[in-house]
């Protein structure tokens, strides 16, 4: 073995980068490389020597090529390693800040309640917040100058304006902010025929000072089921399903007589809350009062619609949404809902 041959193998092993390696490859294996030269020189040798020298050179070529390839892989691996290292990022750094967004807890609670009743075949409809005295009181068998009116402290409006009725007609009369979602009973029945099941979620208003458990503006969910053969047992069944859906199989319901002018018999209902181990007085309910059906059919008649509520029965219920949301989420003060405080609202983003 000649000196350059030894040097060549050594240089290849020590090449520092791919550039140097390519130069070495050219130097030995290139067209004018030392080995190529030697190969070319073979032709001049006598046969026996040429055969011997040829074998030597072939072996050397293989050795050089092997060394080059090995070194190349080493250098490539090294280059990749360096490149990757240079692209290293702190994966713990925060990403681009988007906005997470979220729904108001009352929206969430209302959605849960509506879904419970949708599963029982109810449909959700909404009514106006600005109402006439007729739909909010008179048609619900709460005449003017009756002490029952005192049960609803009312925000009245100044001035005289007309209002849109259940089927788009114009209505005259004193205006108020609805004190309950019940006027939608009248509006819906005027515009539709039984049988049906509806729930009416919505904002309601009471003229009262606010404190930790009272708001002048809050939300109710009203239910109304009308048809032939609807009974008070069906009312109890509906509330029972509500209780079970909200609080599981340990929950129970309790009904007690109470007076609401638009139902007869009337009831207030409570739900047993197993977690809190107490009865929650939730709301009012009852069988739709015959005078309410009569008021609806009288109104239909005035509009030229045929009577639709003779011989049917129905039940209605209504309850507040805030109280359930307060219990569901552990909210201590009803005023939080309208506070607009983001530190409060943002906590409900996790509620899907």
């Amino acid at each position, binding site marked *: 073995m000649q000196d350059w041959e030894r040097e060549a193998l050594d240089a290849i092993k020590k090449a520092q980068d791919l550039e140097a390696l390519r130069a070495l490859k050219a130097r030995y294996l290139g067209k004018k490389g030392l080995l190529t030269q030697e190969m070319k020189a073979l032709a001049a040798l006598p046969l026996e020597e040429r055969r011997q020298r040829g074998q030597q050179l072939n072996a050397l070529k293989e050795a050089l090529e092997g060394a080059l390839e090995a070194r190349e892989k080493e250098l490539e691996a090294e280059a990749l390693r360096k490149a990757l290292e240079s692209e290293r990022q702190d994966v713990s750094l925060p990403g681009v800040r988007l906005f997470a967004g979220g*729904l108001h807890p009352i929206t969430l609670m209302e*959605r849960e309640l*509506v879904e419970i009743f949708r599963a029982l075949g109810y449909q959700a409809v909404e009514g106006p917040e600005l109402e006439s005295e007729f739909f909010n009181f008179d048609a619900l068998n709460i005449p003017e100058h009756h002490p029952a009116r005192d049960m609803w402290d009312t925000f*009245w409006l100044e001035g005289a304006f007309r209002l849109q009725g259940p089927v788009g007609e114009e209505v005259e009369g004193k205006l108020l*902010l609805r004190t309950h979602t019940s006027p939608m009973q009248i509006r819906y029945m005027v515009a539709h025929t039984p049988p049906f099941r509806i729930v009416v979620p919505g904002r309601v208003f009471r003229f009262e000072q606010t404190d930790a458990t009272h708001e002048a*503006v809050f939300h109710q969910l009203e239910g109304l089921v009308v048809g032939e053969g609807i*009974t008070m047992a069906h009312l109890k069944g509906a509330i029972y*399903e509500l209780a079970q859906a909200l609080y599981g199989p340990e929950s129970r319901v309790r009904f007690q007589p109470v007076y609401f002018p638009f139902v007869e018999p009337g009831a207030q209902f409570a739900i047993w809350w197993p977690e809190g181990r107490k009865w929650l007085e939730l709301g009012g309910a009852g069988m739709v009062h015959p005078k309410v059906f009569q008021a609806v059919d009288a109104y239909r008649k005035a509009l030229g619609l045929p009577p639709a509520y003779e011989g049917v029965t129905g039940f209605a219920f209504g309850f507040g949404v805030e109280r359930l949301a307060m219990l569901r989420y552990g909210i201590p003060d009803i005023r939080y809902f309208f506070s607009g405080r983001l530190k409060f609202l943002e906590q409900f983003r996790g509620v899907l």
Partner: protein
Amino acid sequence: MRVPFSWLKTYLPELEGPEVLEERLAGLGFETDRMEQVFRIPEGVVFARVLEAHPIPGTGLKRLVLDAGQVVEVVSGAENARAGIGVALALPGTELEGLRVGERTIQGVRSFGMALSPKELGVGEYGGGLLEFPEGELPPGTPLAEAWAEEVVLDLEVTPNRPDALGILGLALDLHALGYALQLPEVRLEGEEVPIPFGLRVADPGAAPHFTLAYAFGLRVGPSPLWLQRALFAAGMRPINNVVDVTNFVMLERAQPMHAFDLRFLGEGILVRRAQPGERLRTLDGVERTLHPEDLVIAGYQGEKSFPLGLAGVMGGAESEVRPDTPAIALEVACFDPVAIRKTARRHGLRTEASHRFERGVDPLGQLPAQHRALGLLQALAGARVAKEILEAGSPEPPAPIPFRPEYANRLLGTAYPEEEQLALLRRLGCRVEGEGPYRVTPPSRRLDLRLEEDLVEEVARLKGYETIPLALPAFFPAPDNRGVEAPYQRERRLREVLAGLGFQEVYTYSFLDPEDAPRFRLPPFPLRLKNPLSPDRAALRTHLFPGLLKVLRENLALDRPERALLFEVGRVFGVAEGRVEEKTHLAGLLFGQGVGLPWGEGLSGYPLLKGLLEAFAERLGLELRVEAHPYPFLHPGVSGRVLVAGEAKGFLGQLHPELAKALELPPVWLFELSLPLPEAPFRFHDPSRYPLALRDLAVVVPEATPYGEVERALREAAGPLLEGLSPFDLYQGPPLPPGEKSLAFHLRFRHPERTLTDEEVEGVMQEVVAAVRARGWRIRG
């Protein structure tokens, strides 16, 4: 209504105890707000007779000589301290609430204890005078606690349909229907055949359908016996004297208010009429009132003249009230029109025990029984003599029978109560049951709420207990016109969910605004105002949501200093158009602070971010959204646009006017507000083309003031149907462009739905586009 347990028990001797009673009442529909333990008479308080009362000159005090088993002296400042009455005397050493009674020397007089007012004794609110008894009520020296037992009072919520339950006897009758034996009070009355020295005329029988007037004379007005005072104190009333106390006691027993007039002030008799304009009356509370012509008054008359003595059904007059020297009375027990009484009570801001009951209605047959009960007590307690005849005007109207089908009750309730059981329950309530199929049920006259068959059904269910009604679910197909009614609700709900998904936080704000907010937020005056706002700054109904959102932001900044906020609200707003109120649903959004980006970078915020979010929102609803420059007084004049959704103007988007922001002490804020519902885009499926895309780029140089939207629209129009998409990728101003010009660069994507486009076709379209650009005086760049 306050129900002393022991009082109720006098009618229902079998009552178990207050806790069981509370449960029974709840089952009957009477909720107990509160149960209260009252009357803990302290040890050391004894009954004493006042033997002598001597004024201590120059002090207003009196030296009382008392028989308290032994003769003692005390000093008292009470006006009513006098010889001949019984008092509650706290002996030295007695522990009163917050006070230990001692033996003291006052004005040189040794005072051996203290004569007590109701307040000092802890039995009532009144502290203006001594609690006084008939002098022979108890043996002197008797510990008062022995005669004055403790009491449990249930504070009941009585709903307006049950005025009968505003009398303790009425409640007892309801409980009796559950099975408790009833013991009615014994009425003993000895009437005399004497002429009645007054007349009765009712000028307005509509307002006073039944009016009775009795004559009692030879009265000895004085303190009531202990049992009566104890009963009144427990019920929350103050004993006055035996005559007034009897009227109040009978009212509390029977829910029938009554009033005694001192005969000396009547003239020739009583006239029931409406007030005359400008007529005045000083009522028992000492207030001089000007009467309204609709007020019903009880007047005295003399010849042609008459003068008001009291506001009928509300409050008596001060002049004719019963005093210690009143020798005779006319006792009024009437049935008034509830609406007339309610109006008068409201007009004068007077809500009395009497008006509370009359407003709700009294038993139309209850006047004479109440007269007899009261007169009997007056005989027993005030030594009264009573005329046998009672003047009466009008005739009471007995209740009418109601058809009743037990089978209907079961149908309405979903129960299977046996017919006989239902009838038995109604009878037990005092109903008369006649006929059959349907039965004719005449309710007791006190139950004004029983008018319809359904009312009787409730009675059956109430007495059986609502817990006996089973649970069931109804199965039926809704009538066809109910199908799909929830679409608007569901759509609005999904819209909220899309906004939350895009990063908006939902808030709720009040529907009320300050009327001053209109000029403050540069809005037209709010057309709808409340008659009775909670406060002046909540007197108007909102016409827009954004002022509420700005207030929310302001409060958050003040309290928590957030760096950024992206808010929305969906809510109702209220306007007026041509005399008709218009309630609409709006959606408003607000962006403030650092937008989207790396925490240490500048990030993207402001108008482009809010616009982008709004565009993404529209896209999620399948709607095309455009904004065109349009001024709004509350927006920055340079960043103010009208939002068009599917070509319909729906609201605004822009930056809050810097002047407004400054006035509100707010940083820069971007807002939008849209009127809902948004147009609905009918869904149409497009099969995506599989043929190759042709891509072209184009840069257009336009005057700086030319809106982007105009350029995009021009390109789209010129490119025609082969243009599949167009997206801007560069907006440039500066050299080499001359000042006042800008360059907008677009990627254009062409594709044919059914074949491959040729280069010639695409070039042809591009030439159209270029021509359109030039036709507008714009240039193609590069």
